[in-house]
């Protein structure tokens, strides 16, 4: 028994000393650093998931980096040293898979778009058609990022040509502009509207429910800490993860 | 041309410079004294380039009430202060340019001055390429071209090599005689005072200690410095 404890302690020390690829320690669980690249729209929910995961596995430090999914995908392909990638649509994940760098992506959540206006609805917006009004300040994501391409698809489906004032690089930048009152209306994810709380008001768009974006997550092939990383991915896909995601407004995969 | 009557106090950090004297038209007064005595401050006060209290009367006009650019007091500075970005012709033409407004008109009007001071050959050169003597002639021409009522020269020979001083001194004496108005030359050199000035004012520590010709100062010096200066011994 003592030999086993000593061996486990030695392995644990080895795991703490170098966050490189380690064989999974026999009794202590995952350790080390897990670097996660996640879409901007996952900002608050992944902060929450990471904190819970770290509470359950004290030896692990989850480092989160948020951004536009497309930019993150390009970073992974350029060799960014990350362990996990969670993107806001499947085509961005495909960039990483096509490069052979994603190990078995799994969809873990869905999201839908919502029309938001700044608190008090100064523009008097009631629906998507208002986005065509020239006197309103409107912000969208640029079509190269997932929320932008989703917004474009939604607007095309409804037949609205929006008079856009700024095309931002990620959805949180759009959200900030609405929260500050600098734009009258924008299309962001339902989860972002919830996260912004009282700073924005949401307006449900019925057609948006049929246009779901699917969020895949994948362990990366070049992960430095595949054991802990896989553990985190499992956590996101597991029961606790499902509960937290639903609570933030994400749909089931 | 009128008489210059000065009765003023120039405040300075260590001591005030107090001077009262007259310079008739056509006469050259030399102001001599040890370094730091306040000689240049007197010139600056007359020209309006520093704060001063008192009167600077030219005839019946009080220059002290006027800003420097309206006093009609020409100055040849110790460092000459030629405009480095202008050639010789534009330097000498500067006063005309200021008065007439046009660069070309000023450049034409300045030809007589260039000839008088023998600068025609140097007209297109820039101040940086001139010798000490040449630069001094340019500074003098520029001051004279403003047609001032009073002419002030601060250590005019200071920037010159010893070899050229005699020749330049003789030329300068000639131009001063031609000037016609009251003129003041500040110098610490006895040879300069002898060649250029009709009378000298000896200044020590901000006060006038003696006035007279060099001979008078040599005969009856008021202070030890004046005695050494007037007799030609090293000061």
């Amino acid at each position, binding site marked *: 028994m003592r030999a086993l404890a000593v061996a486990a302690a030695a392995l644990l020390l080895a795991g703490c000393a170098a966050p490189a690829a380690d064989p999974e320690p026999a009794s202590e669980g995952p350790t080390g650093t897990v670097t996660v690249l996640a879409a901007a729209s996952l900002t608050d929910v992944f902060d929450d998931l990471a904190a819970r995961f770290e509470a359950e596995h004290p030896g692990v430090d989850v480092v989160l980096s948020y951004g*536009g999914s*497309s*930019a993150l995908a*390009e970073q992974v392909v350029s060799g960014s040293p990350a362990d996990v990638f969670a993107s806001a649509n499947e085509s961005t994940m495909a960039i990483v898979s096509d490069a052979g760098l994603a190990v078995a992506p799994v969809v873990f959540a869905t999201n839908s778009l919502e029309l938001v206006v700044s608190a008090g609805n100064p523009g008097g917006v009631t629906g998507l058609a208002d986005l065509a009004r020239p006197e309103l*300040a409107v*912000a969208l994501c*640029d079509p*190269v*990022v997932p929320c932008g391409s989703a917004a474009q698809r939604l607007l095309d489906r409804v037949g609205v040509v929006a008079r*856009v*004032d*700024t*095309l*931002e*690089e990620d959805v949180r930048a759009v959200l900030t*502009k609405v929260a*500050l*009152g*600098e*734009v009258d209306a924008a299309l962001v994810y339902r989860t972002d509207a919830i996260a912004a709380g009282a700073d924005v008001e949401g307006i449900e768009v019925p057609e948006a429910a049929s246009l779901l974006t699917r969020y895949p997550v994948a362990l990366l092939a070049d992960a430095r800490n595949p054991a802990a990383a896989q553990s985190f991915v499992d956590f996101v896909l597991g029961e606790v993860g499902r509960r937290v995601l639903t609570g933030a407004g994400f749909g089931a995969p | 041309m009128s008489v210059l009557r000065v009765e003023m106090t120039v405040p300075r950090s260590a001591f005030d410079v107090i001077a009262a004297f007259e310079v008739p038209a056509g006469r050259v007064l030399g102001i001599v004294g040890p370094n730091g005595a306040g000689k240049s401050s007197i010139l600056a006060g007359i*020209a*309006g*380039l520093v704060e001063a209290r008192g009167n600077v009367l030219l005839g019946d006009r009080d220059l002290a009430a006027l*800003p*420097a*650019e*309206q006093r*009609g*007091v*020409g*100055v040849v*500075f110790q*460092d000459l*202060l*030629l*405009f*480095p*970005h202008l050639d010789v012709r534009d330097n000498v033409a*500067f*006063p005309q*340019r*200021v*008065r007439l407004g046009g660069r070309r008109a000023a450049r034409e009007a300045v030809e007589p001055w260039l000839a008088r001071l023998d600068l025609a050959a140097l007209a297109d050169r820039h101040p940086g390429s001139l010798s000490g003597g040449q630069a001094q002639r340019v500074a003098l021409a*520029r*001051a004279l071209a*403003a047609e001032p009522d009073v002419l002030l020269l601060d250590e005019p020979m200071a920037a010159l090599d010893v070899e050229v001083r005699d020749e330049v001194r003789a030329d300068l004496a000639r131009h001063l005689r031609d000037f016609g108005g009251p003129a003041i030359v500040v110098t610490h050199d006895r040879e300069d005072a002898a060649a250029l000035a009709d009378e000298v004012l000896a200044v020590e520590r901000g006060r006038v200690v003696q006035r007279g010709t060099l001979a008078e100062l040599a005969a009856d010096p008021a202070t030890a410095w004046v005695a050494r200066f007037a007799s030609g011994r090293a000061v």
Partner: protein
Amino acid sequence: MPRRRTGPVVAILGGLGLALLVLPLVGLVARAPWNELPALLGSDTVLQALVLSLGTAAASTVACLVLGIPLAVLLSHSVHWPVVPRRLLRAAVTVPMVLPPVIGGIALLLLLGRRGLLGQWLADLGLALPFTTPAVVIAQTFVAMPFLVFAVEGALRSADRRSEVAAASLGASRAQVFRLVTLPLVAPGIAAGAVLCFSRALGEFGATITFAGSFPGVTRTLPIASYLAMNSDPDTAIALALVLLAVSLVVLLALRDRWMPGVVR
């Protein structure tokens, strides 16, 4: 001066410094998609961004000159002020230089945005600044002006101000002194400052994207377009980067010998 031999330490460290500055540019040029470059350079994305960047940077430089030269004169006069106002003035001019540009953009937004301190009054008058091209000019002017102010102040300080005294003795009024003596003496410094200002305005990103937003042809300057292109189309991003590099080099070379004795010989 006798020629001093360059010691090994200086050579090695200096060489490393040079490599750090030059090699990334070499990498950029080497990895450029030269075959597709003509098509990329002719695309709307690149042309719109280029025209917008050049126009706004030029406008910003003009604004910097009009406002910055008098500010530099003020700064040079402030040596006669009491200590506290003098230091405050200098600190105020320095702040945009040391502030991270995004913070500058946020500050501009809080001042001139629709809900901003001044912006709300402008909005009542029907003037909305964010998301317009003038907003780009404002953001660029904010970050670039200190460069011009300090260059001009340096020139004012090193120019022999006694020439102004001589000019006064020759009958020049204060305005004439400034026009005929002071300005020509500081002109090389002004030109150098204008070049720095233009370059800084051209490269400005953080304040622009935060305050003015990002829309093609209106507010999406070369740096912003390049950043966005990195998301999806690295070839376009590289093309945009090359255009920026080329413009910067042209600006530097065009003003070489004539105007910048200190910066480039």
